[in-house]
């Protein structure tokens, strides 16, 4: 189920990318030596920002990172083995809104260099083996269609077969409408794979990043043995706008944030990105039983 709020944001973002002079200037900052923080406007030396894993040195704002950056942040050097890179999305519904889904896919693939909204593989984290899936919000709002579902399912099955932990870095607006009910069914498929992984007494850690909503929150994002979240991420089931309309009153300021979910008991720990690798590695080590 697509989460309306964040999908709106994604479409708004997309429209913004039409070149304007202001955008052009901003991109020059981003492409160049300096990067401006979206939150506090502080200008940072890009190299320093990358060294700090794209977390603002002034205000701690977690800038969006690509799946490849994320993998290099989490996985030990030279240990990453990608899985199922050959999987490609198709257009089973011949879906067309104001643009054909097949065109939209091709365009997004060209722009992002990705085949779809998740990269999966296995590697080591501080020496411990782990299967990892990383979603990428740039690819159609991280929406979950058949390829996302299949790749995550295979990664989990791989982890079960090899008796290792699995972690999924979530970033998604929900199910991908353009693949209709096939997208919805990925929620069940992935959850089934997680049930087998759990039955084998293995550890699963979802890591919730901005934003994690809709069908992803109503499936694998909430099924962790332990659930971690990055600070100030938007995490929720229904869109904030939808809820506001039904409620006709203002929602709490921290509504649907990582901090709110921690308070309500749905997240175990908020972990700043700079400590994420160590925390995940520590948890994996703590759950390694003899013989596994």
């Amino acid at each position: 189920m697509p989460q309306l709020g964040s999908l709106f944001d994604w479409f708004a973002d997309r429209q913004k990318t039409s070149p304007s002079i202001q955008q052009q200037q901003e991109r020059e900052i981003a492409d160049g030596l300096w990067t401006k923080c979206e939150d506090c406007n502080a200008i940072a030396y890009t190299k320093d920002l990358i060294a700090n894993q794209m977390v603002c040195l002034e205000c701690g704002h977690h800038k969006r990172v690509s799946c490849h950056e994320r993998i290099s942040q989490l996985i030990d050097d030279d240990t990453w083995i990608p899985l199922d890179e050959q999987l490609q999305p198709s257009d089973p519904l011949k879906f067309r809104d104001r643009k054909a889904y097949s065109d939209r896919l091709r365009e997004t693939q060209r722009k992002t260099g990705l085949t779809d909204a998740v990269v999966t593989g296995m590697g080591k984290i501080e020496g411990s083996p782990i299967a990892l899936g990383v979603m990428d919000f740039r690819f159609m709002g991280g929406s979950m269609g058949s390829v996302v579902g299949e790749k995550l399912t295979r990664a989990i099955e791989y982890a079960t077969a090899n008796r290792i932990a699995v972690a999924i870095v979530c970033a998604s607006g929900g199910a991908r409408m353009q693949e209709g009910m096939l997208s919805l069914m990925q929620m069940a498929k992935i959850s089934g794979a997680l049930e087998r992984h759990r039955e084998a007494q293995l550890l699963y850690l979802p890591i919730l990043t901005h934003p994690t909503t809709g069908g992803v929150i109503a499936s694998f994002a909430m099924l962790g043995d332990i659930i971690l979240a990055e600070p100030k991420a938007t995490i929720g089931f229904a869109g904030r706008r939808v809820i506001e309309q039904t409620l006709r009153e203002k929602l709490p300021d921290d509504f649907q944030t990582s901090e709110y979910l921690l308070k309500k008991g749905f997240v175990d720990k908020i972990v700043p990105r700079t400590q994420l690798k160590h925390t995940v590695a520590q948890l994996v080590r703590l759950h390694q039983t003899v013989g596994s």
Partner: protein
Amino acid sequence: MAGNEKKPFLLEFEKPLAELQERIERIRELAEESSVDISSQIRQLETKYVQLRDEIFSSLTPAQRLQLARHPRRPSTLDYIQAICDEWIELHGDRRGKDDPALVGGVGKLAGIPVVLLGHQKGRDTKDNVARNFGMAAPGGYRKAMRLMEHANRFGMPIISFIDTPGAWAGLEAEELGQGEAIAYNLREMFRLDVPIICTVIGEGGSGGALGIGVSDRLMMFEHAVYYVASPEACASILWKDAVKSVPASAQAAEALRINSQAAEALKITAKDLKNLGILDQILPEPLGGAHADSIRAAEVLKDAILKNLQQLQLLPSAELRSLRYDKFRQMGIFTEG
């Protein structure tokens, strides 16, 4: 069943039929009063009525099916449970502080077989609909469902679930109580259950709120039921966001309708579409005019299909049942590889 005696609620495409039927009635009354034999004319009109009905119902658009699926007189979960069970007792509560009236369930007997039955419950009238939140279940509803399914598992009773919801409830309290977690938990745990699960979409299958009780060994849908990842209205408001605003104010209502029906078409929400996509196992034929036109007949079709599937599933050892359930969902998805 409830509702059938009340003044009929007519959808736009049902109106020509109702008008013709009214005309036949009027002529019949006149004939009785004047004692003129016009039985052949009446027969002619009746034949015309059947033709018109067949014509309308054999060429329904997805948007029209959506209207039928949401028809206020459409039989609900409780209507079907009461019609198909020898006996039944409704049970309440999630044992976490909630009893959601939008998701009902209990224990009963189906042709002599003890079963657990559960499903989304829409209201039978406006007041009831408000009380039942239009069938939009809260986390407490999904947790009640899970509690009843665990009960079924413990006593070896098959689970019969009915889907009929516009979607899971989107509200402040639902978020506070973990709507996402409640649905996710069911999705995973339903793969663990050792008893047969037969699920039928009786009306509207609204996204994750539907799937939250929809993991099953057999998925059936009534002919005019719909099942979607996002409601056509929500889909249209995202993907065709500015289309309505681009036409003159006087034409906006018509344009919105047109776009919604376009979205209903594009999303592939009908039983036939879902069978083609490898998601649905079985389509249950509805009486002509839809399930609400003859709810007793619809219940018979439903009961018969449940029992036939149950006979097959009960032969399977639980490990095999679970493994087949896994495989069933495992193959869902269409992509290319190579």
